[in-house]
Each structure stands twice: as structure tokens, then as C-alpha cells.
């Protein structure tokens, strides 16, 4: 394993590229946590993951590199961007992206990095392993995963399966034992995405009432608010749309994905006990979009000034 160590003063091309990729990764990672623009943070994350994948490639771990791109860039970041845009995605810096914990966070981050670097340096010292292409290829990797490491692999599979089933159970309201579900009161008037949240009718209805012809005035910056009559219930079943509007152009279509609502027309019905519970569960999802109204300094996506919301 250890061969004659080449001098550190004449680095090979591979080593230089690796160092550069590492610099890109660290730099973009710092930008992720320091930028004041939410979407930019997610996009810097793409750069960071890309540089990491490049690092894997230089180390001849092709499979890991492409999985990194496929899973993290192609799926995780897209999912994050989707979530950001579903709740809020102002263009321009946001004031509230800073946390009071940043000193502590920096200390923890530096300490973790120092620990890892110490361990790696102490463990390997001047050990030198030349890179041979092909060690990270599918065949070798598959052979070692399914021969040597098959037990951890299977254990991880079970872990992922459990997470998957848990997600399904959490998101379904119609199975007994699922969290939000008294089967009697499960009908989703408690879901914020489908009808006005029972707990806050007075905050939402007034804004929505005056406009019967065209979409009501939008609170600025909150993306979901810009989608009054959209016919896409599929993408946002538990979505964060604050308060569906009764005078929507397509009430029937919008409620199609909803389990049978006893009174589809009467969205202002009294909150039932079960609704309050599920409302509480969704409360944290909804809060960011509501707090958005209080930061009118953001350049907003829509052209409607924020004060129109409060005006009613």
C-alpha cells in the first residue's frame, strides 16, 4: 500500500486539480451558510456538491461521483428548491436569514473540522496510495458491497424502508392510527392547502372577499399566494397555500384530491376538534409564509405591494 512517497514540492496534475476542487467545495459551502439570499444558498450547494463529485472522480471513485450528482444535485437540491419556492423565495437579500447562534455554530464547525483533520492526519501520516483507475468502477464496488459488506448494506436498506413507510404513514390521514387521523374528523378542512384554515378565518377571508372576478390581491413575496385558481392539486396536497379562496374558479377541481369533504361548499364551517389538532400540526409549515408578510422590505416576486394584504 505504501510506496515511495513523491515529494510534496512537485505535485502531480491530479493533486493540483484535487486541491482546486477542494477549495471550490469549501468556498461554496461557506457561501451557502453566509449568503443572505435563500435561493442562492441552494444554488451554491449545487456548486459544492459538484466540486465534491469532481473530487470523487479525481480519486477514481466514479460510481460515488455520479451517485453524488444524481442524488444530491438532481434530486435533493431540486427538492429543496421546490420547497423554498413553495413557501417563500424572495429575490434579493432577506433580513431574517441570520441566526443568533452563528458564533456557536462556527465554533462547532471549526471544532468538527479540526477533529476530522487531526484524525485523518494522525491515522495516515505520510501513507501514500497511488491512484489506479478502475478501483471505483461498478464491478469492484458491487462485488465488495454484496460480498464483504452485505450485512450493513441490508441493514441500511431496512432503515431506508422504515423511513419510507414512516413518510407514508405520516402523510396519510385515512388510515387508522396515523397521527392526524380521527377517522371521523379526518376530512381535510384541517389541511391548510385546501380550504381556509379554521383557526384563522378572520385573517384570510377579508382579504379574499372583495374580489370575485379576478384573483384577489396577493400578499407580496409569498409564492403560493400567486396561484389562486391553479388546477394542480397533485403537487401540493399538504401545501402551504395560505387559505384557499372560496370564490376560486375551480373549486370542484381543487378539491378533487381531497378526501370526501362533508360540505364541500361550506368552507367556513366551524372548526371541528380534529381540525384543530391537525391545524396545530401544520402550523409550523404555514408560519414562514405568514411571517413573510411582515417583511415588506424584500423585493417581492409579484408586483403587488404587500400593504394590500393588510389594507382590508
Amino acid at each position, binding site marked *: 500500500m505504501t510506496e515511495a512517497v513523491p515529494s510534496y514540492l512537485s505535485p502531480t496534475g491530479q493533486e493540483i486539480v484535487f486541491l482546486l476542487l477542494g477549495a471550490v467545495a469549501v468556498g461554496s459551502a461557506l457561501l451557502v451558510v453566509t449568503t443572505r439570499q435563500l435561493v442562492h444558498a441552494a444554488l451554491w450547494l449545487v456548486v459544492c456538491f459538484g466540486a465534491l463529485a469532481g473530487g470523487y472522480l479525481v480519486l477514481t471513485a466514479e460510481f460515488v461521483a455520479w451517485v453524488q450528482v444524481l442524488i444530491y444535485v438532481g*434530486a435533493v437540491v*431540486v427538492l429543496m428548491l421546490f420547497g423554498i419556492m413553495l413557501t417563500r423565495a424572495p429575490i434579493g437579500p432577506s433580513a431574517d436569514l441570520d441566526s443568533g447562534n452563528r458564533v456557536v455554530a462556527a465554533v462547532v464547525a471549526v471544532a468538527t473540522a479540526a477533529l476530522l483533520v487531526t484524525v485523518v492526519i494522525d491515522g495516515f501520516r505520510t501513507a501514500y496510495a497511488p491512484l489506479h483507475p478502475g478501483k471505483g468502477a461498478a464491478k469492484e464496488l458491487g462485488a465488495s458491497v454484496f460480498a464483504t459488506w452485505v450485512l450493513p448494506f441490508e441493514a441500511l436498506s431496512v432503515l431506508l424502508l422504515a423511513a419510507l413507510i414512516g413518510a407514508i404513514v405520516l402523510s396519510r390521514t385515512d388510515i387508522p392510527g396515523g397521527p392526524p387521523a380521527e377517522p371521523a374528523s379526518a376530512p381535510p378542512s384541517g389541511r391548510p392547502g385546501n380550504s381556509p384554515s379554521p383557526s384563522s378565518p378572520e385573517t384570510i377571508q377579508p382579504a379574499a372577499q372583495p374580489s370575485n372576478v379576478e384573483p384577489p390581491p396577493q400578499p407580496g413575496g409569498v409564492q403560493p399566494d400567486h396561484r389562486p385558481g391553479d388546477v394542480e392539486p397533485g*403537487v401540493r396536497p399538504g401545501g402551504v397555500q395560505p387559505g384557499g379562496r372560496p370564490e376560486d374558479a375551480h373549486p370542484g377541481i381543487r378539491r378533487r384530491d381531497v378526501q370526501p369533504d362533508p360540505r364541500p361548499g361550506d368552507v367556513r364551517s366551524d372548526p371541528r376538534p380534529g381540525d384543530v389538532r391537525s391545524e396545530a400540526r401544520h402550523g409550523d409549515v404555514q408560519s414562514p409564509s405568514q411571517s413573510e408578510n411582515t417583511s415588506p422590505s424584500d423585493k417581492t416576486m409579484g408586483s403587488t405591494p404587500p400593504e394590500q394584504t393588510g389594507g382590508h
Partner: protein
Amino acid sequence: MLDVVLSFAAILIVFLVLPLIVGQTEHKVMAHMQSRLGPMYAGGFHGWAQLIADGVKFAQKEDVIPAAADRRIFMIAPGVALVPYLLVLIAIPLDRGLVAVDLDLGLFFVLAVMGVGVLGAIMAGWASANKYSVLGGMRSAAQLMAYELPLVLAASSVAMAAGTLSIPGIVEAWQWWWLPWQAIGGAVFFVAGLAELRRPPFDMPIAESEIIMGPMTEYTGMRFALFMLAEYVGIVVLSFLTTVLFLGGWHGPFLPGWLWTLVKVFALAFVVIWLRVTYPRLREDQLQKLAWAGLVPLALVQLALTGVVKVLL
């Protein structure tokens, strides 16, 4: 070294020419399917130079960036949408031994890089400072998340059948009876790929009758042309991938191999156009339902079928 330069030059030419041919074919095929003539004037013979004229027009237009937009992201978004498809082409074989880079993990490379392309649409949608664009971007993201899974599952079925992830290796291992064996997977792959390209009938993200042009609403001139180019390169790439994975690539009687590949690619591109003319746009909930309740189970059935046959043989 010369090989590499030559093959990359060839890829660049393919990259620039084939999308134009597909675009022109779309003009004419759509027109004739709708009892029209399509472009007839540009270039003289049946309007063959229409897309060149379009390109000149795009180049002359002003490049408008909205005042409220996030300028940098707005400007790089078309590139992010386009470049991944160029990268994908280097791993696709045209004939036996005729591939720019024979990657050991070519299939993984192709799927991973193609998934990056949608970031361009999301970035464009967000950075335009236009609510319709954001809607389009979100729909793009939702669509990608839904259709990535069946796409990867279908592709992994054929990789299982061939016992390799190298694309030339898969084509080499292909036999004619894989056609019925992998038929479900092929259909799932093609449909999911169409949805990833946001081509009709899966064009809810750019549904022009309700959200103008989706993420591209604010784009003009060359940047808009880059998005259009990305769409047509996407058609070419999808047709190439379906050809090499499911239709046997260069395999075929009489004709030389590269010609077979091209014939299959253009047949598939024709099907893409045909589907656009035939089917109305799917609603967003129908889109999601098709992916999760239709294509994913079908892809899993295909995986099981592949596994069983593979073990029995």
C-alpha cells in the same frame, strides 16, 4: 489526442445539426398532420431554411433582462439548461466502437447529468421575478421529481439484463428478443423521458394558455433560443438513449450500424412530434398520478420480470 479532438468536434456538429433537423421536421410534420403546409418560403425548397432564419432573427433581438430579476442567475440559466445535454452526448455510441468516451458507468453518468438540466428551468423561473415563471419553475421541479424515479428504474432494468452499466456494453449485449422482454421498461423510459423534457403532452410547466411560457416567459433573443435549442437537443438525446438502451442501437440487418442508430433515433423523434400533435396537455394532478400510480409500478414490474428471466436463463 487527435481522436479525442475529432470525436468532440463530431459531437459538436451532431449537437448543432440534429436538433435543427428535428425542429424542421417538427414544423413540417405538425403542419401536415394538421392539414397545413408549414414553412414554405425560407430557403426556397419547402422552407428548409426556416430554422436558420429563426436563428438569425433570435440573434438580432434585444436581450432583455427584467429590472427586478436576479441578473446573474437569470443570465446563466439557459446555459445550465443546455450544457448537460451536450455532456450526455459524449457517452452515447453511434456504432460499434464509435463513441467519444466509453465510460464504465456510462448509464449512471447519463442519468445523473440529465437530471441537472432541470435546474436551468428552475433557476430561470425563479430569477425572472415573474409569478408565471415561478409557477413554471415549480411545476418543472415537481415533474422532475416525479419522473426521475421511473426513468432510473426502467434504465436499471436494462442494465440488469445486460449485466453492465457501460452503454456500449449494453448495446453489445442486446439481442432481438429483448424487444418484447424490455418492452414495458422501454415504454416507461420513453414516457418518463418525455416528461423530463417537458414536451407535450407533459408541458404543464410551460403551459402557454395559462402561464404564458413558464420559466421562459421573460427571456428574449439568444437566451430564449438557447432554451429552445435545449428542448430539441433533449429530444435528440432522449431518442438516442431509448435507441441504445431498448432498441438495440446499431444492431440491424443490411444497413451499416451508424445508419441503423440514426434511423431509430429519427423514428423516435417522429414519435415525439406525433405525440405532441395527438394528445392534449395533461393536468398537473394527472401528471403526478401517471408518474406515481402508473409508471413507477410498471417500472417495478419490469424490474421483477427482468430479474426472474435473468435468473431462469
